[in-house]
Structures are given as C-alpha cells and as structure tokens.
C-alpha cells in the first residue's frame, strides 16, 4: 500500500467511514462502498481529497438516496451526421462560450454543442453575476490564479462585447472589533493571490461609502476590483461574438458517448448524428465528469452544491452602492463565502446565496429555509425589507473534492481537453480560462495541422440598444429611426417592442420567453410578466412565425398556452379604432 493510500484510509477511518474502500486508479483515488446519507458521501469525498492524488472519484453508494438523470432533448435527427470540425466544445455555459470566442480568433472550424435550447441555461444564468476580486480563493490554487487574471480582463472584454459592467468593489464588513486584528492576515492573503488593490477602511469611511449601512460594524476590508455584470448577457455576448466570427452553435444536441481508437476520440455520438473533431473540449458544467467518463478519463467526480439568491425590487439598488458581506468571525460554511448584498448593473439588489450539498444536478427548486437563510444579509442595510423581494432562484455549483478547477489536456486521450469543476469564481475566471484553453487546443492542433490566425476576427460585438438608460436625445433619435422603440411593452422594466424584436433576431436569438427575459429583461421586473406576457407572446408569434400555442417558456414541454378558447377569433390583423 502506497503512503498516499495509507493516508486516505486513515483519513476515512478518522472521519468515521471505515467501511468505505479506496483504490488507486491511474493517478486518482476511487472511493466505493456504502454510507447512510448523501452528506456522509460528500464528507468521505472530502476526507480523501488532497492526499497526493490528482482527483477523488467518489463512487460511494447511498441506498435510498434519489438523484436526477441528465435532462436530454427529445429531438432525434441526423443534422450533424458525418460533420467534421477542428474543435468541438461541449457545453454552452459561460466557460464554453468564452472558449469558442477565443477559438474564433483562429482560422478553425469550431462548433459548440449544447443540450438545451439556449446558452447559459444552468449555472451561468443561476448565479449573482459577481466578478470576484480573487481574495477568497485559496492561495496557490487555479481558482486564485484564473480569478485574478479574469477579473483584470473584464474591463476590456465587456467593452468589446457591449456588456454592462461595473466595478463597485467589495467590502468585507467587520461585525466585531476583533476582526481588525486579522487585517495583516487579510493583507497577506490579498498579496499572495496577486491582488493589486485592497485596503482597511474605518467605520467612518464605510458609513460614507454606504449611508444606510447597519450601524453596528467596525470598519471593513475593501477590495475595489470586485465587479458585477449580468452573467447570462455576458454568456450570450461571448456566443454571439463567436458566431459572428464564424463559430457554430448547435442547440438541443447532447453528447451520448465517444468512439475511441488508439487513445483518440474518433467519433462524437449525439442525438443529431455522429460527428468528428480534431479536438474535443469538455466544458459540460455539472455533467463534465460524465463526459470524461464517456472517454474513460473520469479522474475526478463532481457534486452539486445548491445556492439560492433573492432578487429585490429595482428601487433597492440605489441604497447599496457596493458589494457587501459580513462573514461570521468563526464557523460558517467553509465552502462558501457565505453570501451578501450585491447590486446588479440594472439596479436590482441580489441577496444571497446560501450553500448546501445536493444529490441533484439540475433540480432548482427553492425551499422556505433558503429564504430564511439568505434573509440574514438584509440587516446589513437599513433600507431593505423582505417585502422588496420580487423573485428568487436556485443554482447548482459543480464542485470537485479538490475544490479547484480542472483545466488541462487529458493525460490519456490525446484530443480531449477538460475544463471542469468551474464553480465560483468561474464566471470571474472565464476570460482567462478561455485564453489558456484556446492555447492548449491550438497547441494540440499544431501537432497535426497548420493553425493560422483568423484575419477577419472582430472582437467587437455591437450590442442591441437598451433605451431605458439612454439620454432622452439619443432615445428620441432611435425611436424616430425605429418607431417600435417607442412602444413600451414591459412597463416595470420599460422595455420597448423594438428591443424585444432585436433580441429575436440577434446572432444567437431568443427562442423562448425566458430567453427573451435574459436578453431584453421583459418580465424580469416587479410584476414578473403579469402585464407584458400577452403582448410579448404576440410579438414572438409574429417575428418567429409560429402559432401562439407553440411558444415556450423554456425548453421542451413548457408551452404557455394549451389550446384555443371555444369561440376563438384571431383579431391580430384587425384594425383597432382609435379613440383619439
């Protein structure tokens, strides 16, 4: 028995999991056996982590524990049969979309396969949009490295992609005078992670920065580089810029397996036919361990950690100009920064998230206790109340037991690259991860072919106009050019028909009601679509040339209207007599 294996067995025993067996497999450690609860399985996984192995593969069974299978599209066709691409990226989250945009800089045939009907359907639309400063990641980890690099890249990335990005900075608020003793430790960590800006701020300074801050605090540690953006708008922007530069995105396409020969993937099997690729990039989010398994390269396993965020009314953002949290002095959950308050570029305040382990990977229901847990942050600002909540949502983080990203070329499959375990701060890290992955991919390709730069690559994406924030003169000009910008459809968010139409005809267009919400914010406001839904359905029906009955909220089987009424008459082309 190797020394590392001995250490794992010892650690498992110490944690109370003597019945769990551990075996070496290549450079990883595989756990098997049975435990009573899902929490125990996760604990055993962590007990075995960081004992000198490349990864923990946790195959422990939990009798009676229910989990979910990956949701797969119903479509079966041969649309991709026999197609060949230089690079196929699996997964249309922020990571996958950032990668295809980086790859579009090269003269390569690039395809992205996404099993859902849109990009950013899972973790990339289910997070708070924070571009972390890089302070929280453990020094020396990939997380710390990519976070700091990614954060720095965002100013330019967002400028190029036309994505609203703000750097309000993040405050770790001190709830006890003893925190101040920790300031030198905080500074040392910030330095270790390579942050360029960080400072202690006094109580008076905090009060000046956040006039409605909770009165009882003792100053804080401020990280000015922390930012905020819309994670789904960013993901869509990455995808759109990649598409306009030649990359292709295929929705409703799920990878069900690989054919391999001589240590190489020769065939990618999908529900839309079998295709081939020079390089396969595994950016499949919470399912990337499953994709790795298809290539017999599952050297890590993922587990889901759920979190819930609440969205507060648009009027609340003005009271919270910076990102703020007050972590507990001792204890707390070691796997999360514990959540806090963050104002989105649009002006909503987000509260949360919390964190707990879940056996599910795509199950996004919320619970009353989630709201109770995240509401503790409300007291940090005296202007906020529970009545300001307009909605809440859950997301699931894809965690490895090493609590770090997996970004590397496969050691056993010569044309496979893994980009896995990209949980927080994955969004903040995306531009840097994409840059390195593009480097790995082109490095591998260069062994087989000539890789040239794409001379026509244009990094600039012309974003659709958002009229609400514009000065009145520019707004008037736009309306004169396109009167549809003058017809307000969504009253809460002040979104015009023109903006809805734009989103339905973009390079990666909205195809569902939720897709429109992510792009144009219709239905994202305080009435949650109560008023605008009928009008938006009419616009979608006309622009997409489909019946109202075919329009979906999200994905398959999510139709909004089920049938016509008994005396249905189509008035859509009839003229209405105006009263003035």
């Amino acid at each position, binding site marked *: 028995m190797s020394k590392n294996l001995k250490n794992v067995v010892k650690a498992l025993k110490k944690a109370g999991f003597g019945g769990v067996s551990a075996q070496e497999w290549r450079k990883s450690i595989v756990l098997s056996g049975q435990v009573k609860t899902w929490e125990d399985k996760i604990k055993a996984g962590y007990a075995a982590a960081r004992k000198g192995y490349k990864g923990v593969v946790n195959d422990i069974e939990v009798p009676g524990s229910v989990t979910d299978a990956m949701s797969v599209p119903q479509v079966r066709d041969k649309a991709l049969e026999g197609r060949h691409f230089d690079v196929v990226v699996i997964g249309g989250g922020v990571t996958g979309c950032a990668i295809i945009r980086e790859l579009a800089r090269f003269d390569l045939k690039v395809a992205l396969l996404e099993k859902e009907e849109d990009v950013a359907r899972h973790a990339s639309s289910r997070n708070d949009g924070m571009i972390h400063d890089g302070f929280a990641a453990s020094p020396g980890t990939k997380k710390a490295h990519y976070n700091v690099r990614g954060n720095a890249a965002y100013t330019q990335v967002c400028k190029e992609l036309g994505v609203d990005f703000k750097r309000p900075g993040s405050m770790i608020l001190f709830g006890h005078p003893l925190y101040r003793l920790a300031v030198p430790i905080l500074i040392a960590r910030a330095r270790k992670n390579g942050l360029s800006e960080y400072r202690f701020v006094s109580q008076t300074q905090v009060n000046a920065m956040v006039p409605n801050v909770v009165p009882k605090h003792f100053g804080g540690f401020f990280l000015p580089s922390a930012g905020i953006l819309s994670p789904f708008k960013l993901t869509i922007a990455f995808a759109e810029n990649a598409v306009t530069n030649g990359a292709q995105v295929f929705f409703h396409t799920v990878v069900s397996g690989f054919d391999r020969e001589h240590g190489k993937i020769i065939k990618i099997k999908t529900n839309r036919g079998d295709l081939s690729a020079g390089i396969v990039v595994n950016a499949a989010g919470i399912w990337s361990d499953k994709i790795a398994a298809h290539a017999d390269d599952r050297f890590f396993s993922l587990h889901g950690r759920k979190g819930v965020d609440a969205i507060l009314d648009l009027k609340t953002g003005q009271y919270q100009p910076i990102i703020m949290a007050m972590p507990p002095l001792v204890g707390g959950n070691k796997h999360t920064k514990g959540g806090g308050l963050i104002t989105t570029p649009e002006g909503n305040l987000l509260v949360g998230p919390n964190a707990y382990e879940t056996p599910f990977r795509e199950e996004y229901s919320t619970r009353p206790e989630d*709201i109770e847990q995240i509401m503790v942050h409300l007291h940090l600002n005296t202007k906020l109340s529970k009545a300001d909540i307009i909605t809440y949502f859950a997301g699931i983080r894809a965690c490895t037991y090493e609590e770090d990203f997996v970004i590397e070329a496969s050691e056993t499959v010569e044309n496979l690259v893994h980009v896995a375990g990209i949980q927080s701060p994955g969004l903040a890290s995306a531009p840097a991860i994409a840059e390195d992955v593009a480097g790995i991919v082109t490095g591998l390709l260069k062994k087989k072919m000539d890789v040239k730069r794409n001379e026509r690559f244009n990094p600039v994406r012309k974003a659709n106009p958002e009229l609400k924030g514009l000065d009145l003169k520019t707004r008037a000009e736009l309306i004169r050019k396109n009167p549809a910008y003058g*017809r307000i459809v969504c009253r809460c968010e002040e979104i015009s028909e023109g903006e809805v139409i734009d989103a339905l005809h973009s390079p990666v267009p909205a195809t569902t009601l939720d897709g429109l919400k992510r792009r144009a914010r219709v239905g994202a406001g305080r009435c949650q679509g109560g008023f605008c839904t009928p009008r938006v359905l009419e616009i979608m029906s006309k622009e997409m040339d489909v019946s109202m009955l075919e329009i979906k909220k999200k994905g398959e089987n999510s139709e909004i209207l089920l049938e016509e009424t008994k*005396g249905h008459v189509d008035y859509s082309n009839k003229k209405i007599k105006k009263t003035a």
Partner: protein
Amino acid sequence: MSQDKKWDVIVIGGGPAGMAAAVSAHDSGARVCIIEREERLGGILKQCIHDGFGLVKFEEKLTGPEYAGRFIQMVEERDIPVFLNSFLVELKKQGDDFTLTLVNSTESVFSLSSAAIVLAMGCRERTSKQIFIHGERPAGVINAGLAQYLINIQGYMPTKRCVILGSGDIGLIMARRLTLEGAEVEGVYEVLPEPSGLTRNIVQCLEDYRIPLHLSTTVTKVHGKNRVEGVTVSQVKDFRPVPGTERYIECDALILSVGLIPENDIIEPMRVAMDGKTRGPCVDQNMMTLVDGMFSCGNCLHVNDLVDYVSESGEIAGTHAARYAKSRDRKRELIPLKMSGDLMYVVPQQLDLSTGNQATIYFRSNRIYKKAVLRVFSDGTEHLTEKYRIIKPPEMERVSLDLSKVPPGTREVGIELKGTR
C-alpha cells in the same frame, strides 16, 4: 396635439378612475388630457367581460367593457385629448408645475406640463414569489388577471386543469370563467380562515358551479420543471403549514389571486408620503396627496372592490384638481383623520378644513364582525355614528362627513370602529 401648451390637469391612466377624473376636471372648467400606456382606454375593465359593474353608479348591471364604454363616450363627447400608447418615463415637480416626460412611437420623446396631475395608474397583482411559493419556475404559474387577459382578449387557454390560490375577486371570477371554457378548476384555496372576495362572487362563481373553496389552506410547493405537473397544498394554522396535512394535486397550472398592489412606482423618486396599509399615497378628502397639486384616485390610491367607487374617487380627484389649477394660492389646513379600534385602513388619511365640504370616507374593518359601530369625532364631539349588522374586510364601506360641523382650530379628527364578533 400641441405639446408646448400647459395643461391645467393631466390624468395619468385611462382606466375607470382616470376617465372619471378627466371628465369631472373638464366639467369643472379645466383643460385636461389623459395619458394612457395601452392602445385603448378602459384599463383592466377591457378584459372583465363578466357583469356586475355599475350597480351603484348607473343602477344597472353592466359588463366591464360596457362600463368602460360609458366613460369612453363621455371622454369623446367632451373631446378630451388622449395620448394613447404613451408611456410616462419621468414625473417631476418643478416650481409649481408638473413636468411629464413621455415616450411613444409617433412623437418619440416628448414632455407635457400641468398645474395639477391626477394619478390613476391602477394596481398590479402580487406574484407567487411575493407570497413565497417554492418549487422550480415552470410554465403554468400565472396570475388570475393574466389568465383573464389570455382567455378573454386573446382567446387562449393557459390551463386544462388548475388549482386557484387565493379567494380574491379576480380568482373567483376566473374560477367560473375557466369552468365555462371547459377547464377543470380542482379547487380554490385560501390561506385565511375567511374568503377575501365579495360574498356575491363566492355564491355566483364557486357555489353555483360546485367549485370547492378550501379555507385555511395554502399551496406550499409547485411541482414540475418545464410545465406545472402538480401542487402540494397544506392546511395552515397561525400562518404556518400544519405538518401531515399535505396533499398532492395533479394539475397543469397554478392560478394566483393573492392580492393587488397599487402601482405608484412612478412617484417613488418624489418621496410622496405613503400609507403603509393601503400602499397608496396619503390624501385629504379632495384626493390631494401631501404634494400640492398631485391628486390620486382609484386603485393606485387604495384597492377597491367595486369599480363604481373607483370612478367616484376619480370624480372627486378630477373636480378638485381642476379647482386647484384655477386657484393655486389657497393654503390647505390639514389635520389628521386618525383611525383607531377595529379598522384596517381609512382613506383619506388627512382632512383639509379650509374647504369645508362633504368628505367621503372609505374604510375597511380589520376582520369580520357581526355587529359594529363606527364613530367620527373630535374634541369630545361626535360628528357621525353608523351601525353595521355585518362588516367584513373584503367589502369596503363609506360614510359621508360634513366638514362644516368640525369647528375651526380642531387638531385632529378621530375615526373608530368597534366590532363585536
């Protein structure tokens, strides 16, 4: 339409409150216009094809569109200008005047100004998340008012078998409407021990169609990922679900009628004094808010159960907005109308003694009482006493107070309801 001229009164919203306000303002000699964000006048009445409107105002049983039609006719007869499809993006008070910035497709961005404004923006529905419903976010969780629009205006069914949560009037009306359209309404569930809608709606919409009403019961979870597959309901005690009483109901939609919220977001930046109970601005008996020249009426002032009272408050607001525009130098003598006892809320919250007119006071009790006595008094003098045989929160009551009876110099008028259960 010229945008340069100044209006005496601008009415924001062309529903029943706004139209009544505009007609009254016009009849009181004001130059008035209406701004409306939708393509037709009528507000929510356009989709209320059931009858029962106008019993108080017209002594007739009208449908919503018919009731709206009466007012649309009055607006047209008076040639009151209406800016349709025009959306108010900013409201400001500069000096004595109000400036409104609007957007529409023909005039792009334009502004209007006036001496007085009447707020008549109506209300919106409380959503599933505002009452903390949990589960995923599938298609099929919709508000009753939205369901009503989809069915009555667009001609589409959002459900074949549904559960209705909340016994508010729209929910009750929709229970009947859905049944008539061939959908199955499994039941109406109400978290409170008493229904929130009008008794006549309970009888005519539920009992007549044998739709069960489950009181002290609520929906605790929505099931389904992409489309609603079912809901879990639980009995409720002290606002908490009672463990062990859960029941799973298969359905394709959850329709919510869980309360209405006055829409006052446009005045939020102006920091107008608001009533936490009504969620509308505090007003005097002339419907003037505590901002001089700003009037409020209808459902953005407080949520009414009958449209007739919506129009009535619009008439008061319109008449007095016109008067204000003519004689702005008059100073108000505001004193609080202070409520006590078993009241949920009172409108107006202030009385202006300088006008000495009749004040219509709207109020609701905080719960059902078999007997109740309402008193209005000041400095030991009783101005008004009214006895009620049965009084309940869903049914708004109103009394008329002769302000000439309130002596000058009075600091405060009290209003008290004493109920017996």
